[in-house]
């Protein structure tokens, strides 16, 4: 079973497709969650997901915008897609019938 941040990362990588790399994934997660995403969390989670075989990473081409430094490109594997689907289905199932309306004033 995936963790919450792992799922966020996989979803961002899947959405970005060919353009999925460190900085882009981080921006995608930040705009989706409206929270800061640290580089430390991102890169350690990337390593963990790669170790589990859910993603595949490789060093891409350097670009001038990055001071000539290469990107760490990411691609979600079939196993990653399967795990993400399972996580999404579980969240959907467990959320069924829950309205999430606050009964007390915040």
């Amino acid at each position, binding site marked *: 079973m995936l963790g919450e941040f792992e799922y966020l990362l996989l979803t961002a990588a899947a959405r970005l497709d060919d353009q999925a790399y460190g900085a882009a994934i*981080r921006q995608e997660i930040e705009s989706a969650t409206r929270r800061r995403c640290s*580089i*430390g969390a991102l*890169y350690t989670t990337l390593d963990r997901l*790669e*170790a589990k075989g859910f993603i595949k*990473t490789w060093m891409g081409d350097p670009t001038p915008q990055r001071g000539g*430094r290469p990107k*760490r490109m990411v691609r979600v594997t079939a196993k990653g897609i399967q795990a993400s689907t399972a996580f999404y289905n579980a969240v959907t199932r467990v959320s069924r019938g829950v309205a999430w309306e606050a009964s007390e004033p915040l």
Partner: protein
Amino acid sequence: MNALCWWLVNLVSRALTPDERDAVRGDLLESGESAGEALFQVLGLVVRRQATLWTRWRPWAALLFLAMPLGILFGLVTKVIAYHGAMYLWLYTNYWSWTIVENAAYRNDLIDFVASTLIDYGILAVLAWCCGRALGFLSRGGLLVNGALFSGLLFFGELLYTPGASPQLVAMLSDVLRLLNILSGGGPPGVPRFGLYALERSGSLSANAMVFEHTFYRYEFHHPQHQFRAGYPAYLHRIWCQGNPPAEEQTRDHGSDCGPLQCAARDGPPYRIQPERASRGGVLGATDDGRQRYRTFSRGRVVP
């Protein structure tokens, strides 16, 4: 301030593997982070990486069996050599006369002092280099913490073994030297004045209290010597190690991340590389039949 922060970012990111360092610095540049934020981010990543690393046995072994004992031992030995040097330096600067050079006995003593000091410097530098190499061999990734501890032990050893600071410590130091002297069978042949025996020859430290009354001989004279003879060789080796991490150290938590060509060279044919899109770069490699082909590359696994 910004320049300092970016300099610190570069410095701290040296703890990462070269590939990751480039990717992270590129990400920071691309996302337009401020220098302070960039430093915070890189520090966070380095701390996480180190935390992961220290869940394994190798860094702990390097710490317990190399960095700590050798740091203490080098601190001790450099201190003794510094005592020796300080006493002679005090004598020569306070009682300098050209008679020392003219008189054969005095001259021999001066030559002996200079030669033994140079030998001590050389031996300690070599030992420190070897220590840095052993640390790197046992756990290159843990060099950051182990190196800092090693330097810290040298530095605190310097403060701890200051003459007159603690009679108990001085007594312990003398005992250790006596033990080393016995264990080594009386000293290496041809190097009768190797620094380890300097204290034995010069009697006790209290007998030279006059020398160590001066702050210069007690503190200032020792620090640069300490760093020069033990700290820098080990530190330089650590820098060298950080710049050239071996392939096995670059491997992430699990699995291999080496490129397909390296993997192919390691595993040998037959192999096939998982297909990648052409836009992701490529290399001109030789095939088994000797022809050259443009191959896409990735960090994926090689599938036999």
